[in-house]
């Protein structure tokens, strides 16, 4: 054990900066992921086979390959076709595109869990498909997917650590840099651990609380 309280305390402001970057990556990526995911889910349940299969393929590819590989492709391979993204942007693009696939499936499950009669009733009143989605289906689906969506934030907080391989100084990389500077492994990583837990535990708690409330409500 080479834990050293002084090094631990000294490292906190630096780790805090990294944690802010982690939070930023997560919030932006999941937010974009929610918008793209909603579109993907509408494609997945569309009657049009082109929309259905193209969105299905996208989701399969993203979920069937490692996020690390996706990030490396965006950061290192895209420049060869003339697309040069700064590291943070590349990380956000990669994480968003990845999150979209997972959020898309969450949305799809939520939408499909709404009784068929809701859409029928809405359409029977003359609403268009999109009006019915907007006023009837999505508000109900959104309540049901709030717990898994909260979980998605928690996993993205952890997954975003892969951005460290693109030289983005988020929480994990801040810790590794401290390890190198201070020649001490334990102190910085205990700090990193604590920072991750401070961010993820409230989210997973919130998720189970929402889940319970939903069970009672229905």
């Amino acid at each position, binding site marked *: 054990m080479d834990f050293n309280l002084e090094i631990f305390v000294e490292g906190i402001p630096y780790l805090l900066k990294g944690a802010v970057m982690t939070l930023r990556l997560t919030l932006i990526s999941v937010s974009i992921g929610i918008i793209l995911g909603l579109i993907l889910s509408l494609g997945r349940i569309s009657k049009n086979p082109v929309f259905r299969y193209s969105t299905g393929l996208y989701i399969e590819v993203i979920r069937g390959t490692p996020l690390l590989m996706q990030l490396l492709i965006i950061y290192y391979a895209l420049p060869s076709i003339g697309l040069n993204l700064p590291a943070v942007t590349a990380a956000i693009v990669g994480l968003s595109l990845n999150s979209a696939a997972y959020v898309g499936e969450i949305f799809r499950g939520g939408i499909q869990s709404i*009784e068929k*009669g*809701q859409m*029928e*009733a*809405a*359409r*029977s*009143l*003359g*609403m*268009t498909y999109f*009006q019915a989605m907007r*006023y*009837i289906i999505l*508000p*109900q689906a959104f*309540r049901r997917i709030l717990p898994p969506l909260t979980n998605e934030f928690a996993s993205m907080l952890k997954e975003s650590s892969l951005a460290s391989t693109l030289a983005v100084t988020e929480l994990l990389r801040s810790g590794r840099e401290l390890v190198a500077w201070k020649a001490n492994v334990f102190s910085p990583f205990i700090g990193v651990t604590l920072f991750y837990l401070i961010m993820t535990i409230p989210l997973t708690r919130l998720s189970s609380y929402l889940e319970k409330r939903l069970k009672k409500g229905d």
Partner: protein
Amino acid sequence: MIKVVNLHKKFKNLHVLKGISLEVKKGEVLVLIGPSGGGKSTLLKCINRLEEPTSGEIYIGEILITDQKVDINKIRQKVGMVFQLFNLFPHLSVLDNITLAPIKVKKINPELAKEKAYELLKRVGLLDKAKSFPSQLSGGQQQRVAIARALAMEPEVMLFDEPTSSIDPEMTKEVLDVIRQLALEGMTMIIATHEMGFAREVADWVIFLDQGKIIEQGPPSQIFFSPREERTISFLSKIL
């Protein structure tokens, strides 16, 4: 007002409606009876194209609604529908359930829509429930709200799909009374129901539908008191 000509509906290989033709004149009430699975719901859903007919023609008023070029959302505003399971919007209050479509679809002034909703709630005897949510209401109350919701669009035609089948027997009367009142006011309606007493009373014409075909049709006095077909007789003897 409603005319159906040689309507067929298939779900993949399942032939559910096999050449249905019928006509309902303005102000008339047509009652559909028949065993479960006979095609009543599918027929009603074809009439506002919640289900796409496989072939055949359907007219609402003068409009051939099976023509792919018609704006079906416009047509549906004129065709109210009431479902067996009510299908109220659980996330909206009773008032919002009723005003949503008038406001968003017909673009009616929200204040006006509200006024109209209160009028309708009064008519169905639920004025005190405007602020409640569907889950706080009994089945009979929910169905009356569903009727008010459909009427709020000021339809020319109403379709009822077994409106009392999911309601406790003690509460069916309050729903049937509302429909009876509509009949008296001259609303054009098609009603699928297992309530034979009610059917006898409000129907101008009765169709017995079994396995996707019209087996027998006629005025209620004929269908209920002197049915001719074996299947009608056996169905009625089971249900009465």
